[in-house]
């Protein structure tokens, strides 16, 4: 009996240890990946055509989903906000509420989640396929650094695209809230905008919201590209990598959002 307990405890401790080591190793590999890509980033600023192409893929092609989602999120906010605020006879505040929740939280976070699903998964799959078709090897053999040619432009493009997408999401969201609150539920037009512009602060709200979007963009791009770059070069491997990319990126966005919010708004 004693031996059994001892054995089980040892196994538990060993399992815990190897899981911790595995996690640390994964973290270390990602850190090395980031370390390798940093010197390549300035170079990709000058490759305007490469960069523009990636901004088009990551940003412009994500517009339909961002516009649709923004509109509906804003409309729901308008409805719910009006419903709650009427009980306190302050339905004019629905503009403020919609704008603040979008600018501070929903804009950057939901745009980032959608971005991880649409652009992040595409990045992982693309780079994973480039690896499995030996294109990354071929670049190395042509003495072209894949970090400079493939990875860096995609990271930079994400950093440029996601904050813009988040802003567009916020704008359409506020418009959606306006249509529902003012157009449908009869909130006063002037009060809606006046309260909003009085309550929303440029630095505290807008800039912080944009900082969030930039941080999310960096995280999503690095997770997506790392998964693609390190994927097992088979169809199964690439499909697993794509799934992992979206799941990890989404969870990291939500977790980091909590940290950022607690730093920014307390």
């Amino acid at each position: 009996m004693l031996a059994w307990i001892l054995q089980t405890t040892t196994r538990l401790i060993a399992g815990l240890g190897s899981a911790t080591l595995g996690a640390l190793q994964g973290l270390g590999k990602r850190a090395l990946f980031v370390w390798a890509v940093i010197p390549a980033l300035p170079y990709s600023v000058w490759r305007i055509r490469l960069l523009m192409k990636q901004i088009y893929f990551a940003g412009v092609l994500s517009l339909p989903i961002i516009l649709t989602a923004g509109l509906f999120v804003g409309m729901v906010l308008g409805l719910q906000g009006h419903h709650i605020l009427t009980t306190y006879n302050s339905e004019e505040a629905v503009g403020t509420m919609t704008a603040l929740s979008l600018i501070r939280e929903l804009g950057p976070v939901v745009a980032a989640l959608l971005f991880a699903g649409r652009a992040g998964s595409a990045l992982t799959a693309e780079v994973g396929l480039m690896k499995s078709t030996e294109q990354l090897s071929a670049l190395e053999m042509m003495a072209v650094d894949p970090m400079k040619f493939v990875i860096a432009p995609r990271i930079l493009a994400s950093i440029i695209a996601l904050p813009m997408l988040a802003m567009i999401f916020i704008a359409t969201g506020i418009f959606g809230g306006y249509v529902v609150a003012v157009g449908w539920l009869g909130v006063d037009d002037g009060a809606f905008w006046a309260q909003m512009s009085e309550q929303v602060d440029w630095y505290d709200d807008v800039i912080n919201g944009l900082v969030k979007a930039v941080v999310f963009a960096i995280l999503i791009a690095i997770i997506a590209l790392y998964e693609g770059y390190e994927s097992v070069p088979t169809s199964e491997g690439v499909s697993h990598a794509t799934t992992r990319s979206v799941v990890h990126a989404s969870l990291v966005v939500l977790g980091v959002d909590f940290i950022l919010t607690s730093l920014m708004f307390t």
Partner: protein
Amino acid sequence: MQNAPLIEIENLSFYRADRKIFDKLSLQIPRGQITAIMGPSGTGKTTLLKLIVGQLKPSSGRVLINGQDVNQLSRNALYELRQQMGMLFQTGALLTDLNVFDNIAFPLREHFKLPEPLIANLVRMKLEAVGLRGAYALMPAELSGGMARRVALARAFVLDPQMLFYDEPFVGQDPITMGVLVSLIQKLNASLNLTSIIVSHDVNEVLSIAEFACVLSEGRIVEQGTPQELQQSESDYVQQFLKGLPDGPVPLHYPVEPWSVG
């Protein structure tokens, strides 16, 4: 120096996880000739190529190219050396978002600031050499397997390298394309004064053009010499491999417990 081997592999060992791929392998690849590295699938032929060009690091041992240890080179020096190397990948590995012309122009544009008309001339010359000057505007997805490989070959020697590596150039090709590739490889090697290294298990095609050949098995070189010397090898293994016999030192059956009845 002219007669010194171009590539020297010394006591090279390589492990993947715990599996031993190469065990103290030594090989000298002569300058200016076509060398064939042969062996059945799964013996690590492609891995050996990657070790030679420095894409993989050996567990122990050295790879010397022109007397330089590939694994001691800085990243920049290695990239400079790579401009002296061309590689034809098994899948062609063309960049899928560029057309044929831009694929071949890619290494030129990345490394040299040349005027566009000059690049166009160089690219057309290389395409002409592989017989595809008319196909310059096609996208990689529109090419047949054989054409893709010829385009990839044109790209591999667009920088006029010293060495060309071929990773299974004949796999999955029809007999006509095979013939075209065989004669292309031979022509290129002679006219450009190259050193070519072909990794393959297509015995007849490879031995028809190789001047030096070796056979890999279980992480070692079991036989090396001219194609004639290989044909006369006394090793049962080499004979089985060259003649394609179904049974021999390499058994037909994967290791299994013998049948038992009752």
